[in-house]
């Protein structure tokens, strides 16, 4: 429809265009030649065709436009679709990511679960193994149990067999007892025989003893015989000796004589010996003396030498005396001389000092004089200059005088010429006046001249005075110089003084150095003291923090000490009380408890443990006692119960009734002797009591007999 409409519009436009073209063609044709109508038709046709073509083009153009628009629309829709698709894609991608994440999480979970599973499996395996081991152990235990049961059965069998054996053995014992009694009677017979034999043996032994005595006597006699034989032989020997002695006796008087001689000689020798000792002592004394003498001699020689030396010295002294001309003969003289010399020296020293003083004074004076000389010389120079000036002045004045005289002469000559030329009458007064004037002038000049001459002479006089003074000063100078030379001599004298001064200076130097040393030592000390922490209390004070660690530590220590002392006191008190035997007083008990809660706790623990032990022991004892009683019951066949103090009730295993029992009473607490008490049951077994208790006095035998009796009764039954 749209296309159609569009076509219509195209056609209408086309028509209008055709109209427009027709008009133009009419106009053109009007203008154009009529011969060209055919061509115009053709032209029209062509135009038409062209127009149609144009229309077709336009139509195609419009169609193209339409198509383009459609394309635009399509593109738009495409774009929209694409955007939507993209959005969808995004959302899908997101979903996909989420899914992937979830997947991963799930995978991790799966892995965890797998791990857990594996663990669980492992555990299961372990459990299974454990189970198996348990089963195995169970089996082994059951096997053991079976074995034990079989053993038990065997043991029971053996027990029964053993019981049979026991009964047999008991029978055997009975038989053997019977045999024993028979053997006892035999033994008694044998004993009697033995006694008879014994008596016989005793007799025999007595006989043996007598025999032994006789034998010993015999031996003694033999010994005696031997002794006698020995004595005999000795006697023979003695006779021989006696014979020898007799021979010797014959020689005896001779011997005595010799002895006397020897004694005499001996005495003589002794005396000699004494003499000898004396002589020796003398010799020693002499030797000592000799030594001394020798020493003395040596000393003498040295003394002589010294003496010679001293004589030489004395001579030299005497010579000195001669040479010096002093009368020194003795040391006193010498000392006197020395004193005199010293005095002289002192005097000289004094002189010296006075001289030096004077020298100093002179020196000063000399200096003053020199200064004066200088001054005077300068004055002299001034004077000389003045004189020269004056002389020059004099010369000038003389020259002037000469000039003036020449002038005067010239003037006179002129005046005379005038006088001669002119008439004196006219000019004479004038001339006279002039003359007078000139003369006055001359006189004045003369006066002046004389004055100057006077001055000159005065100056000359002054110069002379100065010269005199200079001469005097020179003289003085000379004197001073001579004095100076003498002073040089005195310098020689003052040298001693200088030396003394030097010595003093040296002493002072020494003192100074000593003081310096002391100063240094003191400084060192000061240094050391400062090192040790010394200070000047007038300038310094020492402060410290009152709560310093040292004092804190000390305080703590003190407190601790005090506490310990108190504790010690308390404990001492406690010890004293305990030693006195008294009970712990309350306050000290408090101390004990206060002392150490720790200890108390420990003690409590100990008590608890002890109680526990006790209980355990009790239990053990209980079980043991039960066991023991059971064992006793089974072994002896009697159950023993304690009814009251020192009373024991025995019930046999084979008792016919439950009430059948025996009562025994211990006479002493240690259970040494037992007495059977009467019971209903005991009355029924009088025979056994009579046989075993009264006759044989044996409780075990009685009890065994009773058991046998009861057992036989039961087995019979």
């Amino acid at each position, binding site marked *: 429809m749209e296309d159609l409409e569009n076509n219509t519009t195209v056609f209408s436009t086309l028509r209008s265009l055709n109209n427009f073209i027709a008009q133009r063609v009419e106009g053109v044709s009007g203008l154009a030649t009529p011969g060209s109508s055919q061509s115009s038709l053709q032209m029209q046709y062509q135009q038409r065709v062209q127009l149609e073509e144009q229309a077709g083009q336009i139509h195609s153009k419009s169609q193209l436009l339409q198509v383009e628009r459609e394309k635009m629309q399509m593109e738009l829709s495409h774009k929209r679709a694409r955007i939507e698709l993209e959005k969808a894609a995004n959302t899908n991608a997101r979903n996909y990511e989420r899914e992937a994440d979830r997947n991963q999480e799930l995978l991790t979970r799966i892995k965890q679960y797998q791990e857990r599973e594996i663990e669980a499996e492992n555990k299961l395996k372990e459990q299974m193994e454990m189970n198996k081991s348990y089963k195995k152990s169970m089996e082994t235990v059951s096997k053991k149990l079976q074995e034990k049961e079989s053993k038990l059965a065997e043991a029971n069998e053996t027990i029964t067999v053993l019981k049979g054996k026991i009964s047999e053995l008991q029978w055997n014992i009975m038989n053997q007892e019977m045999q024993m009694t028979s053997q006892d009677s035999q033994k008694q017979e044998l004993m009697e025989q033995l006694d008879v034999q014994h008596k016989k043996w005793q007799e025999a032994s007595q006989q043996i003893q007598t025999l032994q005595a006789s034998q010993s006597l015999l031996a003694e006699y033999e010994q005696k015989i031997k002794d006698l034989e020995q004595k005999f032989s000795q006697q023979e020997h003695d006779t021989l000796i006696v014979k020898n002695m007799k021979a010797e006796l014959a020689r005896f008087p001779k011997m005595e004589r010799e002895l006397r001689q020897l004694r005499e000689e001996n005495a003589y020798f002794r005396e000699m010996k004494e003499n000898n000792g004396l002589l020796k002592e003398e010799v020693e004394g002499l030797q000592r003396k000799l030594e001394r003498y020798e020493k003395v001699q040596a000393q003498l020689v040295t003394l002589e030498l010294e003496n010679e030396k001293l004589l030489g010295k004395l001579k030299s002294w005497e010579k000195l005396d001669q040479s010096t001309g002093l009368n020194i003969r003795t040391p006193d003289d010498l000392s006197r001389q020395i004193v005199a010399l010293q005095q002289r020296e002192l005097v000289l020293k004094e002189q010296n000092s006075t001289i030096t003083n004077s020298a100093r004074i002179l020196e000063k004076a000399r200096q003053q004089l020199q200064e004066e000389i200088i001054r005077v010389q300068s004055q002299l120079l001034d004077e000389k200059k003045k004189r020269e000036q004056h002389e020059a002045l004099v010369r000038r004045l003389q020259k002037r005088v000469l000039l003036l005289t020449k002038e005067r002469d010239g003037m006179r000559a002129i005046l005379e010429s005038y006088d001669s030329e002119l008439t004196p009458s006219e000019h004479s007064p004038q001339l006279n006046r002039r003359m007078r004037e000139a003369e006055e002038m001359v006189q004045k000049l003369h006066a002046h001249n004389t004055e100057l001459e006077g001055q000159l002479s005065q100056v000359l006089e002054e110069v002379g005075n100065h010269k005199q003074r200079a001469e005097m000063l020179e003289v003085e100078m000379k004197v001073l110089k001579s004095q100076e030379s003498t002073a040089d001599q005195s310098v020689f004298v003052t040298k001693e003084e200088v030396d003394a001064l030097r010595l003093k200076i040296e002493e002072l130097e020494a003192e100074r150095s000593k003081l310096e040393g002391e100063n240094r030592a003191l400084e060192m000390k000061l240094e*050391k003291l*400062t*090192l*040790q*922490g*010394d*200070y000047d209390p*007038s*300038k*310094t*004070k*020492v*402060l*410290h*923090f*009152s*709560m*310093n*660690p*040292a*004092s*804190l*530590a*000390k305080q703590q*220590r003190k407190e601790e000490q005090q506490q310990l002392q108190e504790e010690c006191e308390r404990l001492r008190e406690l010890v004293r009380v305990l030693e006195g035997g008294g009970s712990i007083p309350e306050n000290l008990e408090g101390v004990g408890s206060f002392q150490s809660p720790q200890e108390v706790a420990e003690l409590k623990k100990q008590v608890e443990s002890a109680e526990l032990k006790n209980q355990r022991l009790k239990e053990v004892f209980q079980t043991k006692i039960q066991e023991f009683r059971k064992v006793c019951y089974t072994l002896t066949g009697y159950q023993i119960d304690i009814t009251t103090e020192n009373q024991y009730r025995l019930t046999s295993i084979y008792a016919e009734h439950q009430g059948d029992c025996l009562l025994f009473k211990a006479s002493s607490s240690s259970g040494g002797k037992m007495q059977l008490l009467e019971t209903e049951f005991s009355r029924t077994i009088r025979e056994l009591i009579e046989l075993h208790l009264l006759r044989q006095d044996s409780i075990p035998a009685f009890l065994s007999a009773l058991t046998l009796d009861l057992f036989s009764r039961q087995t019979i039954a």
Partner: protein
Amino acid sequence: MAKQLGRDQQGITLRGSAEIVAEFFSYGINSILYQRGIYPPETFTRVQKYGLTLLVTTDPELKNYLNNVVEQMKDWLYKCIVQRLVVVISSIENNEVLERWQFDIECDKAAKDESAPREKSQKAIQDEIRSVIRQITATVTFLPLLETACAFDLLIYTDKDLAVPEKWEESGPQFIANSEEVRLRSFTTTIHKVNSMVAYKKDSFS
């Protein structure tokens, strides 16, 4: 404050000098206490200072005490009225003085009126302090062993006209009866000069 001054200005002011010297005392006393075993070694912690590893106490009571003293010292150093600081080590048992670490302080009182700072670099001073502390550490080699339990006290020698502040009191000099002395290095901030020395009880066996 001191550091700032030291950094900002090339020189040393009175306040800065007091600060530096007080700080030195704090570290020096800590070093002595550690080296001489007055307090157990486990109560000390390591600190970097003056280019050295120094040990400083962590005991709160001791820390408090040292802070008190050092603060007071700072004030006095600023006023130039302190002459000497002594660390006295004595036996707790019988109060016998066994060691005295003495730090003589020479104050340049002229610096009080001056306003211009002195010229000396912070580094040069720190170098000097470092050598003093090193020497304190090295003295352990020759000082006799302290066999008994010991405590320490800090004595401060001040000018006579000083009013005693609260919590402080006058004390004796606590000399050692028979002592040997060793002079240690010194350092100076150009305002305060600190000469250190140690005196110790002569060993009776030697």
